[in-house]
């Protein structure tokens, strides 16, 4: 069963249209990459029932997404870019509030996570740093037996040490094969560490969705002179960047001559060059 199934999703706003098909297999982590305004948050909102799609069907953990599906939401752990907690509450008080919201609230697990992540229990939410706020939000998401985490930019604004800590928590979560994560981020390096699948969103369209390892196997990076680049089969080129020294291009490994020196491509380069190629 897929943890997430999006079929023919359409959402139209003035100046922006989202059209998307996407699925996330159970037990996997899918990273949603895209520039600002690409449609990542809109996709997540549609999955959470916070907005109504104009067309298409969405199902989460085998159940159709509806605004009123409280039973389904018990099984979701959600972290939003802006956590949304009242500014005045402390982590301890937040635990008390959530105990009255989630049937399966695990007080002991929440307390352990606060300790593990060194989150001060008695400090008001507004007085916490951005990193602490996100860690608190993650602690809440992991303290009620969620099977699927839906995370919107959970690592943005965090320093590398905290990011590493958070990424480790997510990896631990997916050790259970019934668990899955959908994570959107600008920080592609985090997704590269964490994800099994990567989906590129650009201007409301899915550019590609592929297993990360396969992406890294299929695509490579070449640095060529302009003349050598011009001689390449255009179908082999996914995206390119011109500089005074030549051209850097992401290519399909199987579509270029074997003698061509091809470097491994990072997900970040792949995404940036694909977008640039699209823009050009």
């Amino acid at each position: 069963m897929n943890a997430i199934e999006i079929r023919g999703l359409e959402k139209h706003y003035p100046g922006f249209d989202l059209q998307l098909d996407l699925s996330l297999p159970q037990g996997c982590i899918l990273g949603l990459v895209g520039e600002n305004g690409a449609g990542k948050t809109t996709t997540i909102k549609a999955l959470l029932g916070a907005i109504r799609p104009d067309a298409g069907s969405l199902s989460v953990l085998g159940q159709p997404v509806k605004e009123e599906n409280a039973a389904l939401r018990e099984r979701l752990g959600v972290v939003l870019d802006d956590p949304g907690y009242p500014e005045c509450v402390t982590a301890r008080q937040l635990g008390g509030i959530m105990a009255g919201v989630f049937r399966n609230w695990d007080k002991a697990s929440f307390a352990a996570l606060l300790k593990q992540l060194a989150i001060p229990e008695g400090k008001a939410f507004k007085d916490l740093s951005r990193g602490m706020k996100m860690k608190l939000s993650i602690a809440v998401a992991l303290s009620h037996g969620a099977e699927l985490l839906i995370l919107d930019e959970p690592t943005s604004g965090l320093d590398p040490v905290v990011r590493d800590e958070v990424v480790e928590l997510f990896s631990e979560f997916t050790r259970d094969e019934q668990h899955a994560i959908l994570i959107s981020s600008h920080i592609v390096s985090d997704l590269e560490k964490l994800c099994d699948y990567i989906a590129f969103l650009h201007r409301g369209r899915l550019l590609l969705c592929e297993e990360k390892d396969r992406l890294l196997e299929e695509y490579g990076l070449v640095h060529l002179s302009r003349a050598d680049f011009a001689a390449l089969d255009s179908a082999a080129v996914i995206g390119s960047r011109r500089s005074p020294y030549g051209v850097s291009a992401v290519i399909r490994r199987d579509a270029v001559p074997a003698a061509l020196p091809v470097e491994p491509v990072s997900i970040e380069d792949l995404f940036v060059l694909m977008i640039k190629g699209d823009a050009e």
Partner: protein
Amino acid sequence: MKGLLKKDLLMIVKYCRFLVLMCLIFAVMSGFSAEEDGSGNFFFLVYPVLLGSIMPITLMSYDERSHWDLYCSTLPLSRKTVVNERYLLGLLCFLAFFAVTMLSQAAALLPRGRGAELGDLVGVLGLIGLLPPAVMLPICFRWGVEKARILYYVLIGVMVAGGLIFSQELMLTGAMQLGGAAWLVPLLALLLFAASWYLSIKLYQKREF
């Protein structure tokens, strides 16, 4: 709903404690300011009840600022539950300040043999306390507090102007002129409040975040 109530009570304690204290003082003072001739300070009389009943709107504005609405829509709570909690809280706040005001008025009026006026006060305070949230809450739930705030200022203006023009005495006289039908006023206010509750559920179910 337990979690939502807990959150809102924490927010009242943190953000609104001075307002609550001030309302309690005003509610008690309303009794002291009741004059022999039936007049008194109308402001002290209505302010606590009015402020108490719109407490949910005050909290909603804090929630909007912290983007709680979107996060709340991801929690295992139906939209109906979210609306129910806010109306229940508004009703509880209204009843708390209403009770203190009525007790204070009873302490002032009963020794003077004017207990009959208490019945009229129920109507006046019921209307003043329940009408503003009944009008504003559906707008808050559908379009947010900012838009409802404009209406709030208009309503407050109308009520203050009403208080200045007609005074407590005149309003009470008006209520007394209703005679046996005076009980209709709070009943009407309650009916409006109930209709507003139902409308808010319907409107909030259509809200996108």
